[in-house]
């Protein structure tokens, strides 16, 4: 063994969490190294070739608003972009883009390579050492090279002791043929990290030339494309289409006839799989009445013929998988390029973490991404960013950076993880947030960019632009509140055209905009002095006026929430000695060590009565 180098921060793993962690650390001035088993696996998208989606699109925009990288990489390499839920309310509009997988990997790797203060190193980290005080001291590569560091961020994704399973066949392997990390698990356990075993899966990849597209429905992207990053400018264009097909009775019969060969049902898979990412066999078994299940056919890139079959995750044996695929319309002669497989891996129980994502018992050790029990690229990137920022702030002796549930989906995600834990890979969903109407993807910059600027990840130039945008929004809102539209012929004709109740006397433009059938864009013809404004500005104006009442109510809820959230609990409290608490509550509180009464109240097994006891106890201190 030899000491190869000395860093402030070591990032173990080059997936979406590792990337954000490394960027944040290096940009905030820390000498940082990112280690990956294979540099060609950096920024891999081992499952669906897309970024964003419901709630996930929100996460990407929040990452961007704080100065993260994912949105920019996605904007640079997307193939098709859509806003999901466009027909629904503004809170649940979610951006999703098909991504050129290879292109994205190259793009992100190149960005990392160019980053100052950041080294990229191909090495499998197998161990880490602690100093006399129990703080992280170094990470050690399989080759024997030791890298001194003051903090380490573990972002091992699905690689820890991973095993892929295809029916009766299984082998130790990471995704896409990359080596698994077999040794780190036991060494993490040795220093006291509690690991659990999770499972996830991915569908097959099919060669495009073997698919009969005449039998498939086509799905195209949005005409007007919204970028992920608030910094992206210029025209964006869709380059590909996606397709839709369906399973049928024949597919379901093949599955039911061969269920005994599925490791999920045969009991060979022990890891806990996610509910929201069920295999096709799961769907068929659990929803017997459903005659067909929808599948999406998505391109993996421009310079490849591989197509991803979303909705068709499976761990059936290869021969059955092929039969199942051939039963689908348009796939009668499909040629499978990669099998669907299930993958099992080790990850950490997130209840061991503070909301900073640092391990409570090991100073300087942080976890992020799938290692913390989540699922999804976006969830991983969000945690990587927060772990990176907090590792730096901890080394600099600065206050922790914690987003709360009313500020961001990122805050909700991390609070859920470290407060409630998870017994399946955790996916972000809009229904996980109590403050959806406040946490929209369109206002992520308003919510978070000032914080990103304060942290030091948002440039002065971008911040000035942000301020200008805020001014423009405020001005236009004031203008609409000032203008009074008379019951003139023109206005009445407009109202009649859109089927809106006629007005008898003058009405403020902002009042009229509140009517469900009136849009800002539509009002143009009766709003003559309207200035020319960016779509991003008018969107904010419209939403904030139109949904004012609802937004105000959510703000009141958020303020209520903050009251309990701001009641901090001292670190060195001995829960086991608080008499009025029930035993279960004592143990849970002792394990999770919440930072505030609000957090304590969300721990499962801690009742309102326990919180009442805790409040009284804290008063008596």
């Amino acid at each position, binding site marked *: 063994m030899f000491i190869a180098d000395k860093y402030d921060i070591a990032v173990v793993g080059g997936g979406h969490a590792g990337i954000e962690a490394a960027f944040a650390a290096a940009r905030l001035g820390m000498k940082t190294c990112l280690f990956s088993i294979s540099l060609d696996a950096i920024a891999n998208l081992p499952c669906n070739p897309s970024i964003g989606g419901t709630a996930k699109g929100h996460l990407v925009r929040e990452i961007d608003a704080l100065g993260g990288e994912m949105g920019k990489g996605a904007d640079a390499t997307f193939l098709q972009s859509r806003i999901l*839920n466009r027909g629904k309310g503004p809170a649940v509009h979610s951006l999703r883009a098909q991504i050129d997988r290879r292109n994205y990997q190259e793009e992100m790797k190149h960005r990392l390579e160019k980053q100052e203060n950041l080294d990229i190193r191909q090495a499998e980290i197998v161990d880490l050492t602690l100093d006399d005080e129990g703080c992280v001291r170094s990470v050690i590569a399989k080759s024997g090279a030791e890298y001194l560091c003051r903090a380490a961020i573990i972002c091992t994704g699905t690689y820890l002791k991973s095993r892929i399973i295809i029916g009766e066949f299984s082998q130790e392997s990471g995704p896409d043929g990359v080596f698994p990390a077999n040794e780190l698990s036991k060494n993490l356990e040795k220093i006291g990290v509690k690991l659990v075993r999770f499972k996830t899966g991915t569908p097959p990849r099919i060669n495009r030339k073997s698919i009969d597209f005449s039998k498939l429905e086509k799905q195209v992207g949005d005409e007007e494309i919204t970028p992920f990053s608030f910094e992206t400018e210029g025209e964006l264009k869709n380059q590909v289409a996606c397709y839709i097909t369906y399973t049928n009775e024949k597919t379901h019969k093949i599955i039911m006839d061969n269920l005994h060969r599925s490791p999920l049902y045969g009991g060979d898979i022990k890891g806990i799989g996610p509910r929201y990412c069920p295999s096709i066999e799961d*769907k068929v078994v659990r929803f017997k009445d459903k005659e067909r299940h929808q599948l999406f056919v998505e391109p993996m890139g421009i310079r490849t013929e591989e197509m991803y079959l979303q909705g068709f995750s499976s761990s059936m044996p290869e021969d059955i998988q092929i039969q199942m695929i051939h039963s689908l319309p348009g796939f009668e002669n499909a040629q499978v390029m990669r099998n669907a497989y299930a993958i099992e891996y080790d990850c950490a129980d997130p209840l061991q973490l503070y909301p900073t994502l640092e391990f409570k018992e090991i100073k300087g050790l942080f976890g992020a991404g799938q290692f913390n029990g989540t699922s999804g690229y976006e969830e991983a990137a969000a945690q990587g960013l927060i772990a990176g920022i907090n590792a730096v702030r901890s080394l600099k002796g600065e206050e922790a950076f914690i987003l709360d549930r009313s500020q961001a989906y990122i805050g909700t995600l991390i609070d859920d993880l470290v407060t409630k834990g998870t017994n399946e890979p955790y996916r972000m969903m809009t229904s996980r947030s*109590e403050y959806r109407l406040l946490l929209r993807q369109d206002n992520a910059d308003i919510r978070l960019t000032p914080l990103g600027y304060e942290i030091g990840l948002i440039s002065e130039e971008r911040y000035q632009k942000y301020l200008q945008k805020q001014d423009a929004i405020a001005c236009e809102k004031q203008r609409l509140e000032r203008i009074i539209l008379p019951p003139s012929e023109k206005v009445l004709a407009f109202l009649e055209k859109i089927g809106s109740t006629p007005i008898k006397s003058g009405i403020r433009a902002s009042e009229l905009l509140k009517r469900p059938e009136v849009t800002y864009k539509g009002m143009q013809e009766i709003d003559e002095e309207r200035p020319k404004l960016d779509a991003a500005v008018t969107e904010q104006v419209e939403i904030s006026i139109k949904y004012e009442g609802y937004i105000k109510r959510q703000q009141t809820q958020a303020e209520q929430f903050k009251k309990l959230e701001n009641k901090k609990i001292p670190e060195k409290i001995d829960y086991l000695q608080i008499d009025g608490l029930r035993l279960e509550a004592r143990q849970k509180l002792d394990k999770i060590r919440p930072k505030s009464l609000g957090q304590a109240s969300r721990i499962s097994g801690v009742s309102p009565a326990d919180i009442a006891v805790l409040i009284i106890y804290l008063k008596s201190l």
Partner: protein
Amino acid sequence: MKLHDTITAIATPIGSGGIAILRISGTDAEFIVQKIVQTKNKKPLCALESHKLTLSDIHLLGDPSVLIDEALVAVMRAPHSYTGEDVVEINCHGGFLAADRILEQLIKAGARLAEAGEFTRRAFINGKTDLTGAEATMDIIQSHSGLGLQNAAGTAAGKLAKKINGLRDEILAIAAHISAATDYPDEVDEPASGQVYNTLAGILQDMQQLIDGFSTGRMLKDGIHTVIVGKPNVGKSSVLNALARAERAIVTDIPGTTRDVIEEYIQIRGASLRLLDTAGIRENADAVEQIGIARAKENMQKADLCLFVIDVSEGISKEDIAIAKELDGKEIILILNKTDKAGEISLTEAEKYLGIPKEDIVKTATPKDAPPIGIEQLEERIAQKFLTGKFTPGEVYITGQRQKDSLCKGADSIRRAMDSAGNAMPYDLLFIDLEDAAAALGEITGETVQEEIIEQVFSRFCVGK
């Protein structure tokens, strides 16, 4: 609220019954009781089997030679006790004296006198009962009537929780559908807006029914707040005494004898009446009497039922008509009293001048040396008015202000959600109100929302890549 100390109280109503029970709860319960108890079998309390009665001597603290009482002592060790803590119960002789002296000794020995409801509060804190259960237990303890007791017992057994949870599940089902359609837009369609509106209307109706039942529930628990009103010397106190079957109020021929409000609980067909006799209302009363009249009027406004008494021998006077006016809009039974004396008022006349329908008029008399007349008819009419139609046996009624507040809050949210649905607002806006409604109902039973919606999304919808 202190939490670690040992509390004690006399657990049976003071002064009634052959046995009085003292309850001691807390970590030091055995230790404290030991200081004043000597078991007949000479065993220390810690050697007694849990939940078994043992005959013992209770003596003065620090002087075992001074015997206070002979009593049965039971130790109930945590967590298998009412409060979930170590509990000792002393069954001593009834009446006031023995129990009181023992209580005094217990406090000297280190126990603290329990606050009202503190045993139940501890039971709740220790997870022995949920919120509705705890509240119902308080109602059982405070219940004045058989029907109230039945209602409280039903609630304690989880009837109310079941009903509330049923409503909550309906709300969560809609929320889950909206969530599934939002998080999986390519896979799940939104519910039809008419369907959502109608389901919500049904839920609102059920919630409103529970809210409306509050007055019945409160009457069952606290008794029907009944006020006897009328001019001075029409025999209000005699009516009270007749209903109470006791000489509760002083009765004289002197107008204005009753100067303050006199209160009495009586039972009618299992329901309880909180009966208040008030000062007669008249002009030209002295200062003291005027205070009484003001209180009478105040009570009239709060009353569930007013028993309006007039003296048939004097006919319908201007004052009577004035009082009838003040009673307008209240539940009234008109009592034509002193029918044993000369003079008569016909039902038609009474209805005409006082505006009270005939079926709400009862004739009574309370002769000095004979049993009262017409009291049973009066009781019958009260029962008809308050039990028939209003109270369905087997139905649960909310009795707590907290429960009512939460239900009202929930109903407001449902109304807002219906407004949004009616105005074709996007579902995610409606969702906020559904969550609020479910949370409000959860406040009653003590459940939270978020995780349950997600649970339902995955159990009811086939979604995911």
